[in-house]
């Protein structure tokens, strides 16, 4: 999948999250009176938001690399992590309201109006940032965490501000809530994908087979390639590819590719890699799959 297409996909995933979440939030709001307190009501909304966007964004990587098991496990991990993100974001928003907020909005009307709106914005922003960190935590990749932090900060801030603004200016308007959620999902998805290639040590583009054209950013110290669904690059449908076939390692600006076990066909420019650092335009063979290394997009 090319970078542009990937960005479009990510934005679409944000929209899907919004579509899914909107009726859930409205239903929660209908049962507002059943909640014992504002805090628990806000927490429920934050958790719902985190779970929905977490699940959709979490499954993204799996869908991009055409790995169903990865998509489903990403969905579950994203939902669980998103729930935590939602709770943490709301708590942080409340904390902000009762610490800095009490100094900023001293009157009851300001506190219950614009103060609450901005505190909600803070909560949505923090949820956005934490959600964007999901893939980094899942892949245990510092680079991906950095991508998440940058993308999540921008996307979360833009989306959180939009969501909070529509709730403030059009309170109780269901369609404006949908618009706010859509902007939240879109900006989070777009900002994440805009930053994705900024922190990478290059990318591997698949040249042949069913997944040809897909680009894999080198964003972690070790990326495993194989036919097993637990690999970072899952090569399903390629002959001669072992479950765990090769590993791409990145450290100190140097990217190398190694066999995962002897006998697995791994070549760089038709020769055994022998620990040489990859250069742009190097052609890497993993079984019958071929990649070109470089900086794309």
């Amino acid at each position, binding site marked *: 999948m090319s970078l542009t297409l990937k960005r479009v996909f990510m934005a679409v995933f944000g929209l899907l999250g919004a579509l899914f979440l909107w009726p859930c939030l409205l*239903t929660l709001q209908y049962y507002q009176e059943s909640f014992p307190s504002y805090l628990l009501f806000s927490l429920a909304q934050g958790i719902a938001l985190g779970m929905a966007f977490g699940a*959709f964004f979490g499954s993204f990587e799996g869908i991009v690399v055409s790995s169903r098991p990865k998509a489903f496990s990403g969905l579950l991990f994203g939902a669980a992590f998103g729930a935590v993100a939602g709770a943490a974001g709301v708590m942080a928003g409340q904390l902000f309201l009762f610490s800095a907020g009490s100094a900023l909005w*001293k009157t*009851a009307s300001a506190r219950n109006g614009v103060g609450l709106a901005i505190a909600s914005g803070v909560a949505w922003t923090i949820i956005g940032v934490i959600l964007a960190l999901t893939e980094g935590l899942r892949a245990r990749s510092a680079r991906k965490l950095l991508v998440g932090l940058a993308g999540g900060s921008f996307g979360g801030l833009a989306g959180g501000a939009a969501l909070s603004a529509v709730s403030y200016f059009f309170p109780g308007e269901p369609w404006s809530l949908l618009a706010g959620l859509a902007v939240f999902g879109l900006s989070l998805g777009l900002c994440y994908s805009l930053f994705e290639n900024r922190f990478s040590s290059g990318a591997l583009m698949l*040249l042949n087979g069913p997944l040809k054209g897909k680009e894999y950013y080198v964003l972690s110290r070790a990326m495993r390639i194989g036919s097993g669904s637990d690999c970072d690059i899952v090569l399903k449908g390629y002959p001669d590819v072992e479950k765990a076939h090769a590993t791409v390692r990145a450290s100190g600006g140097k990217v190398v590719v190694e066999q995962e076990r002897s006998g697995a066909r791994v070549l760089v420019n*038709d020769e055994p890699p022998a620990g040489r650092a990859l250069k742009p335009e190097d052609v890497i063979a993993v079984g019958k799959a071929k990649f070109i290394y470089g900086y794309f997009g």
Partner: protein
Amino acid sequence: MNGDIAMTTTKRAIAAALMAAAGAGAWAQGISITQIGTERLLSNQETRVYVSAPALGLADGVEPPLFEVWESGDGADWLQRPVSRVSLEPNADEGISFFLLLDNSGSMWTDPAGAEAQDAGGSRIESAKAAARAFLGALSPKDGVGLAVFNTRYWNASPPGGRPADAERVLDEISRPGTEDAFTELFLSLQRGLADFAAEPGRRVLIVLSDGENYPYALKTGKPNPETGIRSASPSDIVDSAVRDGVTVYAIRFGAQRDPLVARIAEETGGRTFDAMDGAELARVYDEIRTDVLSEIAVDYRAGMIPGEKRWVKVAVANAAGGRLSATRHYFAGTVLGRGAGEPRPYYLLFVGAAAAAWLTLVLAKLERETDRAGVRLLYGSQATRFFAIAGPQTVIGAAPDADVSIAGNPSLKASHATILFDEAKNVYTIVADSPVSVNNHNVVRRRLESGDVINMAGTVVVFDEELAKGPKGPKGAEGGKRR
């Protein structure tokens, strides 16, 4: 038509009489809600109701009576709320924030009868200053106080939360206004006073003293007010601001000319209206307000989650005679979380279903396609990913328009740069060229190709592709690496 007018007038008169009776009834019951505090609503889900209940005759030290609290979103359906604490005379312990709003219009410089004052001490303003001094002197060190003076202009001379001494100093600075500054901007000044005062913590009491009706400069002169232009404020605006910020307005009408609407403002914000004719009465009124507020009872209760910005609260308590006293007032909760949504609609399921179905489609859809025929694909440039199929035993690649694979745009590319030969018996593709081309970054003139090989011909880079499942027949390629 005249009959209609008469009817309307009669209706209005009846309505006014009924309202007056209702107001009197509230006092006859001997209990009223003076302020509703929402400071702890968002953090602790707690709301505080200040209740004035002189009829109960309670003093500090006695056991607080049992209060019951109800909340409602519409003033009709009530839900009882748990009372967490009842405190007698809490304002003595916690202090009161007072804000005095003093009329310094032209008429304040006349004597109580409205005639030009004979001596400096005989004017209304001097009586008002003396009463204010006595009030300030009686305040507790826990109280905060501010003082603003108004006429055509508004002067927040001693901001709220200050010490009585600061306010007293301001009293000494009050001077007679010129003709242009002598108007009574009562409502606008009340609104500006509320804005200045609303941020004070705890019990907020605004006492406005005026000797006349609202007499706005812009309206009466047709010229914009030097400070507020053509802005105006209505009593309902003032009540709205005061209720939203939890401020009680007490009105003192000094002299014979009395603003009728200021009484409504006081009542609807939980306060009272007093009329005074001379300095001695004025001093008693100030003292009564202070004593009233000091004797209030605070009822803290756990607030509900009723949707809607406006909420009604009703408190009830039994009196010594076994009767039941109750009072009702409204307050405003948050706007962001405070609005409830309508009943869930069946079409909600469509949205959830559509999003889930789209997701599932993306998971299940085979976004990729296997290569089912051999060919070369441009890797870079504007035509990247363009695929040229290879057919027949020999395919010429070059810049010539009649080449089998004709690639334009690279002046270094020869008309016939390389040829791909196909051995159908062995299912093997081989590239041959007169001068070297690069395959996987190695210069060659002849080389067997496999799927994914990258061919660079004088800067034009193509990827050779063929069906992966169809391996070459016969001996393996000689390009190194292990095959299974």
